[in-house]
């Protein structure tokens, strides 16, 4: 059961970051991607919380994979995830109260983040613990990178700052729209287009050299 072919732990780790990036490639986990990327601090807290839940859920699912019944597995995944999300929520409320107020309902919404369920389903319920763990780390890094890539331009243009430190010259007007919901949609749309453009031109170059 442990070695059923498929990608090794190292491949899983690398794949999660860019080639199968959860946000840009698979369009998963869109609601935190749009909702908490108004500034980098919130985005990174969210990425950390999601990474913790994903790691724990993947490891636990992998440990109990022999006991899973096919028709109940999604329910079991969701319950495992809900348990870890409750833990994260309590930790955030205890140690980062301001941040947990700012993130509000988006912390409990990690439960229905389809990215985590899809990793449990595709990887953790079929693979050994070590592979599942490295997969979780890779995907979490990819998710954190994606969140940062959306939060950075939004905070820079909307607030003239990065991580709360002002970096833009005073004369630069602040584009408040970037901090509002429309800014989130448009930024992600344009970045997605950019990512596709790079992907397509790389493919074309590859095809030309072959």
């Amino acid at each position: 059961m442990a070695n059923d072919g498929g990608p090794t732990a190292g491949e899983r780790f690398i794949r999660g970051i860019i080639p199968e990036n959860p946000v840009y490639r698979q369009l998963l986990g869109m609601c935190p991607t749009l909702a908490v990327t108004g500034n980098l601090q919130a985005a990174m807290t969210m990425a950390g919380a999601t990474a913790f839940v994903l790691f724990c859920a993947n490891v636990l699912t992998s440990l109990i994979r022999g006991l899973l019944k096919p028709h109940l597995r999604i329910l079991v995944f969701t319950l495992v995830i809900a348990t870890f999300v409750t833990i994260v929520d309590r930790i955030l409320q205890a140690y980062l109260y301001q941040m947990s107020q700012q993130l509000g309902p988006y912390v409990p919404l990690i439960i229905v983040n389809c990215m985590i369920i899809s990793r449990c389903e595709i990887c953790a319920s079929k693979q050994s613990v070590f592979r599942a763990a490295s997969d979780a780390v890779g995907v979490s890094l990819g998710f954190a990178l994606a969140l940062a890539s959306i939060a950075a331009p939004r905070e820079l243009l909307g607030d003239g700052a990065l991580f709360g430190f002002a970096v833009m010259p005073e004369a630069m007007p602040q584009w408040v729209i970037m901090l509002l919901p429309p800014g989130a949609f448009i930024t992600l749309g344009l970045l997605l287009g950019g990512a596709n453009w790079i992907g397509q031109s790389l493919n074309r170059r590859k095809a030309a050299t072959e």
Partner: protein
Amino acid sequence: MELLGEVILIAISAALINNFVLHYFVGICPFLGVSRRVDMAFGMGFAVTFVISVAGLLSWTFTTYILRPGAPLTTWVYRLAVPDTEVVPDLSILNYIVFIFVIASAVQLVEMYVRKFFPKLYKSFGVFLPLITTNCAILFACLEILRNVSGVPRAEAWGVVEALTLSVFAGLGFMLAIVIMAGIREELDSCDVPAPLRGAGITLIVAGLLALAFAGFTRVDQGLANLIR
């Protein structure tokens, strides 16, 4: 009269001002995935409205009677077990797990009921019904109800009418957004969209413009509140 005014405010705010998709970003997955044709979008919107109402009602009941600190049913059971005590039992640590159970079972119940009594409707729902379990809009509605029941002073806590209004109108707002989106995307099919933006990219940009339009409703609730009072 006071209740009526509050209900109208909650309804307008849930459907238009704080539209679930365009303001809170919940339910984005079906919004991007099932908005290719108007009839499918309508089916999805209808299914979500249906489930969100049932789940909202159930989660209000659970929160009020079992989960919130000092809830009557929990206190009663606790007093049976430990007769002389002043401790206020608090089950709020179970909130999320209970909500997920409620949503999953509500979807299951609705699916069974519709399959038994409205086979035609069931066929037209198709794959949408089971997919709704992982729709974050439903959980978000439950969390909003939770916030307004156990996060506020006892006198201001929402009753069942407010909770039901929020769920129904949140569902209708979702339906409105997804149907408008599908209408725009049907027109987009005949447009020359740059290749990298095709699919999700242009959909997100259009959603951004829609969100901009809906941002025009901001503060409408304050005007209405002044009008009612």
